[in-house]
Each structure stands twice: as C-alpha cells, then as structure tokens.
C-alpha cells in the first residue's frame, strides 16, 4: 500500500468523487481523500474547487488530518479568500490549545495564508504566541512576524510586533534568538533604512552566546547578522573573531563560509603585527580546503568565494595549490573555477607543477576547458617571469598538435607574451606563421595580424600574408578589420617602398567602403597622419608600447572589498554587488570593510591625494570584462583605460584636436613615460597636475597603436564617474547624482536627476552656498519639461567662479540646495580641484616668480607625490581670479 495509488484517476469525474469521499462520515475515508487531494496538489493539479469540503475536515482531533488540511489551506487560501475566513475560528481556537505543538502549528499556518482579511484575526493570537511560555511556540511565532510583514508591513509596525521581535533577541532560548535574528534580517532586507538590527556590544554578546547553542541554521543567521556589525576597535574585533573561530570546524559548509565572512571582515581591523592576525590567517586555510571535498555544487560556490578570498588575501592559500588540481570527472563548472584559482596562486615557487598540470589539461576532451587551460599557460608566462620560457615552449608543443582550437588559443596568448617580453621570443614567429590558414576565429586572426604587423621587418613575406587577409576584408569582424588596418600601416612605415599600394587599398577600404565609424575614424586618422607628416606618423604608430600588467583579471579593489562583505551570498557567486542584480534593491546599503585601526597603516596604504578629491581613487586594475576573452583583449589597451569611463562627449572634440595640430603636444607628452606606469595606475597626475589637460597621454595614443580595438573614446579632461549626491530616500524621491568636469575652459557640473517618486516633479532650481573658490551656477537649472515618475534627465550646469567666497572645510566642499515643486533639499559634495585649473598653465618665468613671492608663506603646503610617472616639471597651475596657487614641490619628482 503506497501513496502512488493516490495518483490514479478514475474515468468518472475525479473531483466529483473526491468531494463525496471528503464528506464521508468515516474518519479513515476522509483522511484518505485529503491525501488524494494533497497528492494532486504536489504535481501542480488544480484542486481548489474542493476548498469548502476540505476546510470542513479541519475540525478534528486527528493531528495528521489537521496537518494535511493545513497544507491544503496554505496552497489555496489565496484563491478563495472568502472561504478561508471559515477557517479562522479553528485557528484562533487552536492557538489556545494546551499542546504547544498545536499552538505553534496554528500560528505557523495562519501566517502562511496570505489573505488580508485573515491577517487581522492573526494579530491577537500572534501577540500571545510571541510571549508563550513554550520556546517552541515563541520561535515559531518569531518567523510568523516576518511572514506577516511580507503580507502587510504597516500592520506589523502598527501592532508593535517589531519591538517584541527585538526583545526576543534577548530570549533565554538560543533557538528563539536565532529565529528572531532571521526574521529581523529578512524584514530589514525589505526595509534597508530602518535600523531594526541595531547592534551594540550587549546584543552582540547575546548573539555570540546563542551562537554556541543553537542549530546549524540558526548559526548561519547569527553569523550573517554579526557580519553587519562594526566593532568599535580592534580589541572588540579580535574578541569577536576568537568566539567565531570554532565555527570553522562545523560540518555544515554554510556555517563555515558565514564564519569565514565574519573573520575576513573583522580581520581588516586587526593590525598585521599582531600574533593573533597570523594565527587567524593559518586557521582560515583548512576549512576552505575542506569545502572542496564536498559535493560538486558546494564546491562550486566555495570556489567562487575562494576566488575572492585569494584576491584579497593571497597568503591564506598560497601553500594549498594542489587541492585545486583538476580531476577528470569534476563537473565542468568546477574545473573552470579551479583553473582560475590555480593561476591566481601561481608563483615562482610552484610554477613548475602548475605548468605540468596545465599541459595535462590542454589534452583533455572538453573544448571550453582546454581553451581556458591554454590561456592559463599564457597568463602564467605573463605573471611569473621566470617561467615565461617554459610556457612559450609548452605553447609551441601545443601548436604542434595542430588541434584547431588549441592552436588558435595559443596564438592569442603568445601575442600577449610578446607584449610583456618584447624582443625575447620572436624566434617562434615562423612557427606561428605556418598555422595562418587554420585560424578561423576573429580573436585568433586579430592576434596573428597584430603579430605580423608588429614584426613586419622580420617576416619576409609580411606583405603577402597581410594581403591574403585583405581579400575578404568586408567579411571580417570589426576586431580583425581594425587590426588589419593598423598592421598594414605599420608595415608601410617599416617597408614603405613595396607596400604603398597595399596601404592605399586598406585605407580606402576602411574609409570609403565601411559603415563602421570606429574603422572609418581610425582610417582617416592614419591617412591624415601619413599624408601630413610621415615622420610623426612613424613616431606615433611605431612608438614603444606600454607593457601589459601581470594581473589582468583582478576584480577592481573597491568592488572586491564590497564583495568580501558578501562572502557566501549570491553576490559572491556572481562577483557583482547585490545592487547590480537583486530585484527590488532600490535601497540596498553598500557594505564596506571596516577601516584598519592598527598602527601599521601608513606603510601599506598610499595616502589618498591630498585634496581628498574623489578622482584620486582610481582603481589600478583593468576591470574584468566578464570573461577571459575580454581580459586578454584589454591587455592591449594599456594602463590608462583603467580609469573610470570618460565622458563620451569628448570623443569628437578630441579627434578634431588630434588632427589639427594638437598632435604635436600629444607627441611631446610623455609616451616614453608610460611604460613605467605598468599597472600602477594613473592617479596622481589627473588630480594634481593638469599640465596638459588635453587627452591623457596614452589614452589617445593607445587607440592609435592599437590594436585590439575597444577604446573608441579619446578622453578630455579627467571626469570622475557620477556618484550619488542625494539619495532618493532623503529627498522625497528625487535622486541626484553627478560629477564635475572641465571642457575647454568651462567648468560644468554634470547632473543626473531621477524621479523615483510617484508624482511628477517640476519647477527645479539650484543654488550654491558660499564656498572657497566662489563657484556659482552660471545659468539657471534648465529643466523645461516636468519630470515624470521614473524618468531621468541629464543636464550639464555651467559654473563660474564669480560667486562669493568663504573658506570651507575641507577646502573643496560645496553645499548645494535644490528646489522642486515638492520641497527644498540640501546636500554637500566635494569637487575635484583640477576643474579649477586653467589649461594654459604656462607663465613667463618672471611672472611666475613674482606670483610665487606674492603668496604669503603660510599658504605654502608641501606634499609628495609618489610613483608619478610624468617627468614634466612645469606645473604652475594658477587660478587667476584670486591668485591662489598650488605649487607642487619640484624635488619630489
């Protein structure tokens, strides 16, 4: 006798028959009938028509029957709200039952019936149950508050359930505490502004006590809640860490990972000199490795998180390389993740092992995996210099296999190796050229063309090779077309005599027959360059390229820090902050790592630019493009792209400028200096030293040389990305984000106004408070049409510096008032000082000295700029209106 009998249907109307059975007098028959109904429900059949009959069975002392009816009710109450009311009386009665199991069951089920009318009746029983003497009932009731909040948030607040719930955090029973925390966390998620989980040292202490005694699931809730707490100093952080560490030995991997999150976060506050810091680091490795022996699904999530941890603190797992070696029957999603981590952990010490493994993987069956393995070999070569030679010979071996996709991947990575180690491995070019015909993927073709162009002088038949590509020019992808154009121009500059025809052919193909603006623009630039000044063209096109940085696919550090706070969550699996993908994330609070309070700080974190201006925090790594493919392409773009996106408006301007004589200044600017920059970023110059406020040195040039395409924009003055100045929550639905920019002498404030309220907004106006440099709007805020709900308007507000002056603290603080038909809102922001600097900062020597002397001594400030790649020492940056000058200390360079 099994339940499968419930699935068999008779020919005669099934529902009809069930109805009869449900109304039978025999208890046993009734129960069987309800079971049949449930069975139909489990496979998604609609049995809602039986609602009244099932509800009639509810009044019974048979617990099983009662539970079954409850199961049914939860599923269908919503579709039959009027009928559901019939059940209320029984619920209320059950909430008074002497048996705690029944009390809990009733309050639990009631919460699951998502019908407004019922919730009103739920309040009283719920209030009683929250204070029930039996902890089982209390803990069930705590969850019920979260359910009710989901249905009717207002009701929960009005009834004061939230406060009762907060009181439960101090309950004597750890299970109740855990459930209260879970319920509060869930409620807080939909109410980010409320400070429901207002943690203080006392409540933290209670949570830590409960942590030791509650169930594994409760531990997860408590640990996740602890992770949101900000300890007041490093001692408190350490004491929390000490009490959380035992969780690392839990059998439940979710508990382990939540504990890792807490530790990783609080560790940030500990000084690295501390003994405890080292102990903690050592304790973190084993549990992380243990996660990898679990089921593949768990492994996958663990690996995604380890990927983050390895980037943040590589020292934790540096000796554990071998556990990431791939087994042939690992699921593909595990294999790919392991490979990624292997490369991150690769170092001089273990490179031999890693290479041997990678070579093994390159002969596996799975194409995706093999491709990634081949790329990984290239990445190792770039990362660990000592291994480059072995990597190259491994790659050559792989090319000899003639397996099509292996060859193509190998060529793509060899191109990157050439970029990293110029004039070292060019002897392999001949082998590469042999495989020219087998390349059918754009990326590989583009890479090969780049190689041919770059080393045209060493390849005897370079012109023939390139010409062969040219035949099908229009069928190629943009990437290949751009590359081909550049390569042929390079070839022409190297061997002008034989290739004149070829270059004309490609230029006309690019400029006249193509619809692609990128291609056309690049074609015209070359054309113009070649026709006006071939020597300059040579200098531009054949200039030395910046070296590519060794780590190319790191997550940008601020994002990484945020993601560390989200270890164990979906965000950590996607490597995106929750705001980027969680639905209804309107008010997600951005989490950040706590600042280090220890004393060893200054040594490791370079000071932010002295002005404290926002643009000084440019990340130093190239943002990930989502996959390896993007990364490797980006390699060619050189360091400047590492900055935030530049304003697109400057594209055309920059190009015109470039053609009309601006080229000279471009060339003078320090192309030679940029290689030294490597991946160290581009921070100081843009903030403090606008000697050439034209395009940043290699931003524009990079595009010319290059290559793999992608940089379509030539940047103007540095423009920081827009940040949110006024969140919608604070301004009745008006959200303002913006940035400052300077274009050809004019300062402007670029604003993005979004209406997140439900009503139309109009009558906008803006005003500035007095500030240090007299910044003021040069024109009224131009928003003509009213702003509809969810509409966004982008405006650029011209500014001048004739407003009234008042010294602000910090100096570049700006207080702004914005008015609309709803209210007046205030916010303050910091503007980058460079927007005040004039472009033609050159002064006559005498004049400079005179002005210099005019400045009273107390106005002099000194600071050092570290790692500044530019060699220019002409940096007098003046602001004529009130003769204040910023004079960097020359000797620092």
């Amino acid at each position, binding site marked *: *006798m099994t*339940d*499968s009998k*419930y699935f068999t249907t008779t020919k005669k109307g099934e529902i009809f028959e069930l109805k009869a059975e449900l109304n039978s007098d025999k208890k*046993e028959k009734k129960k069987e009938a309800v079971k049949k109904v449930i069975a139909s429900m*489990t*496979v*998604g059949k609609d049995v809602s028509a039986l609602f009244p009959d099932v509800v009639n069975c509810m009044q019974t002392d048979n*617990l*099983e*029957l009662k*539970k079954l009816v409850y*199961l049914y009710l939860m599923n269908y109450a*919503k579709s039959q709200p009027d009928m559901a009311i019939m059940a209320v009386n029984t619920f209320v009665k059950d909430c008074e039952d002497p*048996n705690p*199991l029944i009390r809990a069951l009733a309050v639990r089920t009631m*919460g699951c019936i*998502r019908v407004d009318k019922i919730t009103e009746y739920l309040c009283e029983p719920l209030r009683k149950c929250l204070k029930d003497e*039996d902890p*089982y009932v209390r803990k*069930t009731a705590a969850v019920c508050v*979260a*359910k009710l909040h989901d249905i009717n948030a207002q009701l929960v607040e009005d009834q004061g359930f939230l406060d009762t719930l907060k009181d439960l955090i101090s309950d004597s029973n*750890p*299970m109740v505490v855990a459930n209260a925390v879970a319920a509060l966390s*869930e409620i807080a998620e939909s109410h980010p502004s409320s400070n429901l989980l207002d943690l203080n040292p006392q409540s933290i202490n209670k949570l830590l006590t409960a942590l030791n005694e509650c*169930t594994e*699931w409760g531990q*997860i809730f408590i640990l996740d809640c602890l992770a949101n707490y900000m300890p007041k100093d490093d001692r408190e952080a350490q004491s929390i860490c000490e009490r959380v560490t035992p969780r690392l*030995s*839990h*059998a439940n*991997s*979710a508990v*382990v*990972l939540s504990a890792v999150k807490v530790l990783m976060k609080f560790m940030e506050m500990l000084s690295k000199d501390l003994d405890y810091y080292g102990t903690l680091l050592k304790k973190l490795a*084993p549990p992380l*490795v*243990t996660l990898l*022996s679990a*089921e*593949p*699904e768990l492994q*996958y999530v663990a690996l995604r998180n380890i990927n983050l941890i390895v980037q943040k603190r590589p020292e934790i797992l540096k000796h554990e390389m071998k*556990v990431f*070696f791939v*087994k*042939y029957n690992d699921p*593909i*999603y595990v294999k790919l993740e392991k490979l990624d981590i292997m490369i991150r952990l690769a170092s001089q010490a273990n490179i031999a*092992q890693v290479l*041997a493994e990678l070579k093994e993987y390159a*002969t596996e*069956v799975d194409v995706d995996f093999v491709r990634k393995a081949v790329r990984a070999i290239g990445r190792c070569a770039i990362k660990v210099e000592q291994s480059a030679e072995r990597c190259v010979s491994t790659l050559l071996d792989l090319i000899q*296999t003639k397996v099509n996709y292996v060859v193509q991947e190998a060529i793509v990575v060899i191109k990157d190796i050439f970029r990293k180690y110029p004039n070292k491995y060019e002897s392999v070019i001949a082998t590469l050229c042999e495989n020219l015909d087998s390349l059918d993927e754009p990326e590989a073709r583009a890479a090969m063309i780049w190689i041919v162009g770059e080393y045209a002088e060493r390849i005897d038949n370079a012109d023939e090779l390139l010409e062969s590509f040219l035949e099908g020019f229009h069928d190629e992808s943009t990437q290949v077309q751009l590359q081909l154009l550049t390569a042929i121009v390079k070839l022409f500059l190297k061997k002008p005599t034989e290739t004149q025809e070829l270059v004309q052919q490609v230029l006309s193909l690019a400029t006249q027959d193509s619809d692609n603006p990128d291609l056309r623009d690049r074609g015209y630039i070359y054309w113009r360059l070649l026709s006006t000044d071939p020597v300059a063209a040579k200098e531009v096109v054949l200039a030395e390229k910046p070296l590519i940085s060794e780590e190319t696919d790191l997550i940008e550090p601020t994002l990484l820090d945020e993601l560390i706070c989200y270890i*164990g*969550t979906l965000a950590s*699996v996607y490597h995106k902050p929750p705001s980027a*993908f969680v*639905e209804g994330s309107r008010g997600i609070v951005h989490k950040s790592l706590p600042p280090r309070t220890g004393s060893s700080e200054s040594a490791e974190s370079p000071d932010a630019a002295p002005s404290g201006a926002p643009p000084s925090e440019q990340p130093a790594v190239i943002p990930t493009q989502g996959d390896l493919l993007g990364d490797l392409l980006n390699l060619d773009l050189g360091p400047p792209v590492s900055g935030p996106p530049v304003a697109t408006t400057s594209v055309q301007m920059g190009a015109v400028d470039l053609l009309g004589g601006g080229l000279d200044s471009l060339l003078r600017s320090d192309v030679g200096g940029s290689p030294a920059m490597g991946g160290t970023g581009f921070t100081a110059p843009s903030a403090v030293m606008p000697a050439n406020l034209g395009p940043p040195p290699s931003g524009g040039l990079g595009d010319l040389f290059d290559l793999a395409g992608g940089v379509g924009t030539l940047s103007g003055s540095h423009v920081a990305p827009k940040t949110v100045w006024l969140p919608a929550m604070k301004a009745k639905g008006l959200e303002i984000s913006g940035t400052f920019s300077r274009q050809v002498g004019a300062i402007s404030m670029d604003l993005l106004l979004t209406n997140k309220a439900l009503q139309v907004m109009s009558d906008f106006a803006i005003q500035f408070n007095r500030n240090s440099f007299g910044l003021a709007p040069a024109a009224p805020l131009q928003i003509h049409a009213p702003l509809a709900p969810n509409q966004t308007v982008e405006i650029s507000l011209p500014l001048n510096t004739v407003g009234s002056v008042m010294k602000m603290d910090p100096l570049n603080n700006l207080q702004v008032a914005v008015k609309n038909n709803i209210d007046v809102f205030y916010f303050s922001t910091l503007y980058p000082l460079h927007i005040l600097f004039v472009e033609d900062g050159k002064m006559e020597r005498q004049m400079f000295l005179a002005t210099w002397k005019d400045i009273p001594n107390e106005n002099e400030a000194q600071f050092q700029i570290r790692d500044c790649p530019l060699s220019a020492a002409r940096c007098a940056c003046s602001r004529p209106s009130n003769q204040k000058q910023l004079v960097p200390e020359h000797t620092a360079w």
Partner: protein
Amino acid sequence: MIHSLFLINCSGDIFLEKHWKSVVSQSVCDYFFEAQEKAADVENVPPVISTPHHYLISIYREKIFFVSVIQTEVPPLFVIEFLHRVADTFQDYFGECSETAIKDNVVIVYELLEEMLDNGFPLATESNILKELIKPPTILRSVVNSITGSSNMGETLPTGQLSNIPWRKAVVKYTNNEAYFDVIEEIDAIIDKSGSTVFAEIQGVIDSCIKLSGMPDLSLSFMNPRLLDDVSFHPCIRFKRWESERVLSFIPPDGNFRLISYRVSSQNLVAIPVYVKHIISFKENSSSGRFDVTIGPKQNMGKTVEGVIVTVHMPKAVLNMNLTSTQGSYTFDPVLKVLTWDIGKISPQKLPNLKGIVNLQSGAPKPEENPSLNIQFKIQQLAISGLKVNRLDMFGEKYKPFKGVKYITKAGKFQVRT
C-alpha cells in the same frame, strides 16, 4: 529564503512541487531546462542559475534534480546544504531517494518538507526530531494504521527540539548498550603518467552507531590526535575540550551519525597502496590501438587490497575492445565508451593484467586525449593515515556499554593519468 522546491527527474518531468510562500509557476523551471540542454551532460548543469525574477539553486542527487527557487539574497551554500539534507532525509525515511520512493510516499514527503522549512527558514532537520514528528513508513505500521485508524504523526512536541542538545531524545532505552565507531578513510589522488604522485590527500570520517540508554556522556581519545589538524565536527562535540586536550567529548545523538570528518594532506603521510603499469596507445592511420594495464600492491602495510575495480572512459573514437584478463572480468560499454574491469583481490604473487587491441572507428583521426584510469579499492582493518582510537570512556550512566572500532581504507577519487 527558500521559496519553492521542484523535483525533476532525468527525462525532465516535474514530479513534485512544494511552495513555502506564494505559489511560483512551474514555468520558472524552463530556465533550468535551458541550462540543462546547454550543459549536455546532467552532471554539468550549473548549480546556480539566474532568471529575470528568481534564482534557481539546484543539486543533482540519485538521478533527481532538486531545484529550489529563491527570490532574495540568500547564501547559496545554505540552500545547497539544505537540499542535500532533504535528500538525506528521504534516503533515511524510505531507504532510497528515488522518484518511485518519493511518489510512493508523497504525503509523507509533503509533511516532511513542511516540517523542515517554515516560511523558507529551516525548522527541524535533525533526523531524530523528524522521526518523532512523523514516523517513517514501515509495512507493519501501515497495516496497523489501516486497521486501527491511528496515524503516523507524532502528537507531542519532540523532546530534543528545544533542549541544548537538540540531536538527542530524552528517553532512550536499550537492552544491549552498544557504541560502534567506523574510521573510514578515502584516498583522493592523482597519479601522473610516470607513476609519481601529483596530488594526494586522505578524506577521513568517523561514522558512529550509538545505541546507549539515557544521557551518556562520551569521550573518545586517539593515540595520535596530532594527525587531525583539519577537522569538521558534529555539533554535539565540545570544541573547547578538543582545543585544549585533543579529546572528543560529546553527548551522542541516538543511532547512526557522522561524528567527525577530517582531512590529512601532508604528502608524506599519504601512502598510495597500489601502482599501475599501463600502455594505452593509438596508432596513426591504422584505426587500432594497444591497451595493456597491470596493477599491483605497494605500501599496504601487509594488508590485502581487495574490491579493486578499474574504470576507463575511452575516447569517443573507440568502437570496441578485444582484451584478455589474467584475473577478474571486464566489460566495455560501446555507447558510453566505458571500460570496467572488476578485479577483486590483488595477490602480490600474480599481478592482474588486462591487455589487447582497441578498435577505432575507421577513418577517424587518432584520439588526442589519453584516458585516465579511475581505480577503486578497499583495505580492511587499516586506516592509511595511521589514525588509531585509544579509548572510549563513558560518564553519566552506570551500565557498561559494548564498544567497537573498525578501520577501513578506500579509494576516493583515485585517478591515474596515462
């Protein structure tokens, strides 16, 4: 939290759905099917899939996909752990976690799911507690129930649910008091072509079967506890005692449970008990190849290596294999291209060998990849790491329990590259 659960079989039928909040339409599974199609192989379906409004987190167990639907930010490990726990519970209740077993017991399954999760929060997942709430089906009980009309539902609150030791029932009584510990070690290893070890570690567990009356307080000590530096504990173990004295002190759950799991990874401690000599090669343009594999014992501490099975996933181009074995029998599945050689015991005097000809599809290019050998074996009465239980003491109860320890070493993911 966890919104809904769908159980899907290999042919893509949704045979059970359960919703803890509002009902989510079955159509959400289409995204899962899409991913499944893309993955080609069932084992390669990614465990986390995002859809426009939900996230699907799934596990694959016993030919069933457990697909859970979530809507807000939830720790995926939490969901995956929970799903595995659901599968474990089914296994525990019905003896197997299969589609038929679930369909046969659909009402109990539904009751269990309701009991395990409330509003997406785990409620009771300990098997002891669940069994008090919902009695597992037995033939006898279903007969008795249908005669007497009694139910298989516990009428009272489980005793362990709220105590500090939720894993144990209050009143436990046995006539024979017994405590058994199985120390099981699995060797995970990758051996390269030349026979040297690329990677090796031991995954050990101590599974216990404790049938003791009352509230016994046990402490288990080891001869060489220093081996255990990476350990995961059952919640019953007192962590502080372990930290300070390296003794496992605990009030055990009733019945079968996993006491600890541990990992020993330092290379010199991991002995590899077998070696393999192999020649697998394919000739260019002749659509045939050679296969010759010999397996022998080493470093087995004088114990017999038994239950040896070698599995090889041959390349796609292989049509069939003509082999002769000196010991055991072999089968070759021409569809899946899997060669299985069941050897049994290895005797050091006469090493088992399997050799012969591999026939390839005519005209197919010579396979690039070399197949890996997957080896299974068992060694009784040996914990390869050398871990030894010293003694078991019991406090809190007066009777003398019967105690026993068993050691066994097995191959885990043991692979030999060729």
